[in-house]
């Protein structure tokens, strides 16, 4: 009895398997037939004639559609204002619901290595040649090149509104911007926004970060360690601004504002900046630095990096 049921079961499994196989075969056959039907010389259900007709139809269709698109687009593009976008300042998306119009800050050197994303890390090594690998050496070179590249604009002396910092300390190409001796100069600049003029602040005494800059003329810029730990590791900072050097705050003169868009771009607008040199960074520690700018109409937001910028410093070896 037991045996009997077992054989029955086995047979039914086999039947089931055969069923399954035949259905699969049938499906495969239909699929094969669909892909290429030998009887009617059809590929995917259409013969060559029908495929070419279809292709011709779609070709015409897309040519017309594409033409329409391009025509319409070119009309609109030609209507765009030449020197500045149609929407600037508060009209543009530079102002969004949680983002009043405020320029961000940015820094140089900022580069990417290989295929990686652009980094906010500046990683240095001393010029002790024995312990250095080629690649880290390259990195320093890349930073220097990046800064050289950026500063090219400022060599154009024909510009009406020249921006020059007379006292730059180590922060020039000749001294490798301090990168070779572990005292990196970072260039901090304010984002160009058409028509934006920062207002000089009544300094907010309550803000500790800011209160340090009391007495600095124009718009103060200041870099600090992001957290207390970073601040301790950061060491001395020297600011080289247009108005002179300081070890407390840098400053940017509002006479360089506003940026006027393409009109100025033709004249090569020179965006104001501040050199920040880190004199004695604690090596082997990743230090997060936040720089801020203080103006009445620049609203600080750490996460959105409004009125501020963050970057990381890493020194490979004690110099």
């Amino acid at each position: 009895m037991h045996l009997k049921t077992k054989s029955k079961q086995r047979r039914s499994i086999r039947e089931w398997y055969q069923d399954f196989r035949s259905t699969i075969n049938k499906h495969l056959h239909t699929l094969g037939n669909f892909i290429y039907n030998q009887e009617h010389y059809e590929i995917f259900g259409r013969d060559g004639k029908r495929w070419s007709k279809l292709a011709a139809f779609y070709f015409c269709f897309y040519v017309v559609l594409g033409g329409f698109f391009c025509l319409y687009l070119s009309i609109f593009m030609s209507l765009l204002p030449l020197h500045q976008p149609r929407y600037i300042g508060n009209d543009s998306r530079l102002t969004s619901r949680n983002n009043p119009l405020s320029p961000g800050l940015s820094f140089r050197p900022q580069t990417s290595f290989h295929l990686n994303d652009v980094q906010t890390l500046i990683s240095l090594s001393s010029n002790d040649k024995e312990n250095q690998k080629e690649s880290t050496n390259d990195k320093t070179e890349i930073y220097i090149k990046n800064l050289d590249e950026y500063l090219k604009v400022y060599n154009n002396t024909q510009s009406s509104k020249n921006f020059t910092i007379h006292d730059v300390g180590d922060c020039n190409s000749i001294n490798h911007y301090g990168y070779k001796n572990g005292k990196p100069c970072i260039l901090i600049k304010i984002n160009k926004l058409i028509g934006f003029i920062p207002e000089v602040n009544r300094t907010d005494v309550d803000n500790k970060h800011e209160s340090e800059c009391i007495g600095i003329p124009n718009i103060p810029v200041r870099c600090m360690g992001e957290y207390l730990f970073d601040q301790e590791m950061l060491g001395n900072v020297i600011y080289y601004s247009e108005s002179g050097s300081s070890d407390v705050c840098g400053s940017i003169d509002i006479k360089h504002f506003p940026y006027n868009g393409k009109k100025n771009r033709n004249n090569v607008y020179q965006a104001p900046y501040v050199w920040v040199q880190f004199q004695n960074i604690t090596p082997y520690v990743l230090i997060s630095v936040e720089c801020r700018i203080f103006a009445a109409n620049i609203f600080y937001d750490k996460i959105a990096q409004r009125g501020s910028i963050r970057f990381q410093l890493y020194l490979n070896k004690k110099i």
Partner: protein
Amino acid sequence: MFREKLTTRKNLEALKHEIDLDEHKLSINEVYRRYGTSPAMGLSEERASVILERDGPNDLTPIRRTPEIVRLAKNMFGGFAMLLWIGAVLCFIAHFLELYTLDDPQYDNMYLGIALASVIIITGFFSYHQQAKSSKIMESFKYLVPQQACVVRHGKSRNINPDKIVVGDIVEIQRGNRIPADIRIIRAHGLKVDNSSLTGECEPQVRGIEYTNDDILETRNLAFFGTFAVEGSCIGVVIRTGDKTFIGRIANLTAGIERGHTPIAVEITHFIRIITIIAVVVGVIFCICSLFLGYTYVEAVVFLISIIVAQVPEGLLATVTVCLTLTAQRMARKNCLVKNLEAIETLGSTTVICTDKTGTLTQNQMTVAHMWFDNHIIDSDIDAFHTQSNYIKYSHCWSALARCATLCNTATFTDDPNNLSKPVLQRQCEGDASEIAILKCMEDITGNVSNYRSINSKVCEVQFSSSNRYQLSIHSTDDNDERYLLVMKGAPEKIIKNCSTIYVDGCEIEFNQFWKTQYETAFKELSNHGERVLAFADYRLPLNKYPRGYEFDCDTINFHVNPYFEHFNFPTDGLRFLGLISLIDPPRVNVAEAVQKCRSAGIRLLMITGDHPLTAAAIARYTGIITDQDTTEQLIENVFDNNARSCVIHGSTLKTMNSIQLDNLIKYHQEIVFARTSPQQKLIIVETCQRLGEIVAVTGDGVNDSPALKKADIGIAMGITGSDVSKQASDMILLDDNFASIITGIEQGRIIFDNLKKSICYTLSSKIPELSPFLLYMIFQIPLPLGTIAILCIDLGTDMLPAISLAYERAESDIMKRPPRDAKTEHLATDRLISMSYGQLGMIQAGGGFFVYTIVMAENGFFPSRLFGLRKSWDSRSINDLEDSYGQEWTYEQRKALEDTCHTAFFVTVVIVQWTVLLCCKSRRNSLFRQGMSNHVLNMSIIFETLLAILISYTPYINRGLMMYPLKLHWWFLPLPFTLLVLIYDEWRKWIIRKYPGSIIDQETSY
């Protein structure tokens, strides 16, 4: 498990055979011997418990029901839902890949996964809820089981729980009881049973001890489990219990039948296959492209998944469900209650309707059809009567016949002033169906029957019984004739024997051979019409023999004890023959028209009835189911003639046929009437049709119909006369029992199929504008023009109502004039539909979207030339000073705000271009101007989707949650040229299709 399945299948096959029962043919003593019982003593308790042990309790074994959780799971994981689940899982995989490999993961894929899962779960619960209402087949059988039963055991009668009844028990049944098992009747007193739960015929039937028919349902000496004793009482011996009873077998058969997929389910599977293939092919192509473009493997996989998932039409499942629900509601308003949503479309693709006769095609109400007197057949149609009223008024014969018909009739109107004030035909009556018919006819023609009866008072009566097949009564009349009047009514052959004269043109003449031939001709003609013929006769009892006050003795006979004893103290022969009245259950008024409509819609009609072939054929002719003019005999012979168009087949012939013969029968005959069929045969007929590839609709009302109802692609039960079981087994219920309502159903089913096509075309058209931004983002490295949340806003927000509103679209042409959809070639979604929707409408939309995206970018400072290759910098959080074409520098957050604005603009553009896409989808061939704008739901939906888009982009907090930004006013107008382009292109396309049918445009773009 396999074995189990195999055995259940085997059992099911066994159940399909006729019930094997011969107890009605045996003598009662043989029955006692077979079951070891005696009428007086019954079984002993001991023996009963032994048998109970052997046979099991007398109740219907509940079929192992699919657990609720499994059914829920089926709704959650079946077909379309599975596609969405795969999509959701892919989303989560992509999300985790991103999470672990990218520094800055986006949460888009997770949102998409969650949205997909929610859609499936919500729609799954919705359709589960719809289904839950309709799966109570076994529960409905429970109502047929009595609460208490009275059995004789050890010579004592006692009440026991009916599940303890065993074969051989002697049961006593009182009026109002349900019969607790299948019984052979031993003794009966005026027993009438309501077999409606078995056969659907609601006329109570007389039951007695005599064996009258080979057919177990017809014979008098059997009563069945679950039927109802409406009158009288009886004692019977139990011959079958539990699942072996007639109803038990049907219940098990019904519950055991599994139905194949509905046509719409098949179509949806087909559609899913197409969509999946396209999605995977496109995904793989672009995945390979991305590898060539220098993306990493992980990125390429994430792209692959994103592209596949982006093509899943999230909203379509909900749209289809809602469209079907809406149609179901619309049909409910037209008296078609749909229980299974998918069934709606099935009705539209139905190719064969197997219809029941009684109650569906006919009114299930006996009505006087013709009369024969004075050697004339007169149509008893009331109008006809009035036109002939003069003739009738002066016909002595008529008045004699009318008097006889009025007096020899025990039916009465229910005595209730409210009831009596109604028109005659609608009044409630008490009595036998044919008597009621005659009563109503007489009331209508002569008026005030009850008054007439009271002045011609009844002295004595003999009730109709199956054995004597006549009824008579004796009256004192009001026509100043002292003699008593004997009136008699009954089966013609019976009456004719008792008559010696015939009343013609006011003269009483000898009922000679000539008149007998005349009578024969009339009788034949009437019965050939399928009518039930009754003969009427009267006799004036001679005053000398039967003076006033004579004691007529009718009680000496007791038909139920001894039917063959006929001895009265008055003569019952030598009567005067008056005429014939024929009755028919007339077809419903609009059935013929409905049948005609079915025919022109290419649907075959098969009539399957338990009735006599003659009656069935007559009704089939009346209603146009049979159009052949041949005689019924000829039609019966046609069965084996494959060239004949129509045929009538008797159940007994059907029983002898094998499956090949059956196939041929159904294949070669267009018009078939199945008469005297059993429930099992009904099932076999349905199976044969399905084997031939037909999509079968079955109508029925009795429990006996329920296996066929369940097996059919769509079972249609009757709402008024239908038994609960049949309603549970069916997919649709005709609330007014009217066949014509089926036509509405078919029409709606066909419309919904067309409209679902349009809905799909509309929904899919927004897939390209949703997918192409991602592709361009990937290949040309532009900032993403349309985000995932915006895509969800389109699919599950703005697109939903318009897609649903297409369900309200009226038919383009007369869909009832074309043949049913060919399930093999005509699909819901074809490559042409996809090509049209993706390649044409979708591309125009995408064009519009990219145009507006470009403009928004340009007006904020980023020219198209700047956008190419910008992706990496744009999406990098590290870059805080991305320069635009005018030299402004954008922080990451500012760029993202601009990107979200672009998403909003793209989204709004899709909504605006979808306006005209919706208008284009309204019709497949007709110009929009011809199709009109009368679909107000659709018009409203356009306004609604626009308002929704405004709401999403402008409402604070909502737009923040959905990552949208308010748009400048003029950006709303930018898409309008594309909107117009869609309309112009599509009108041109349809014009070409209409003007040059068969051209390349027609071949490749008409779906």
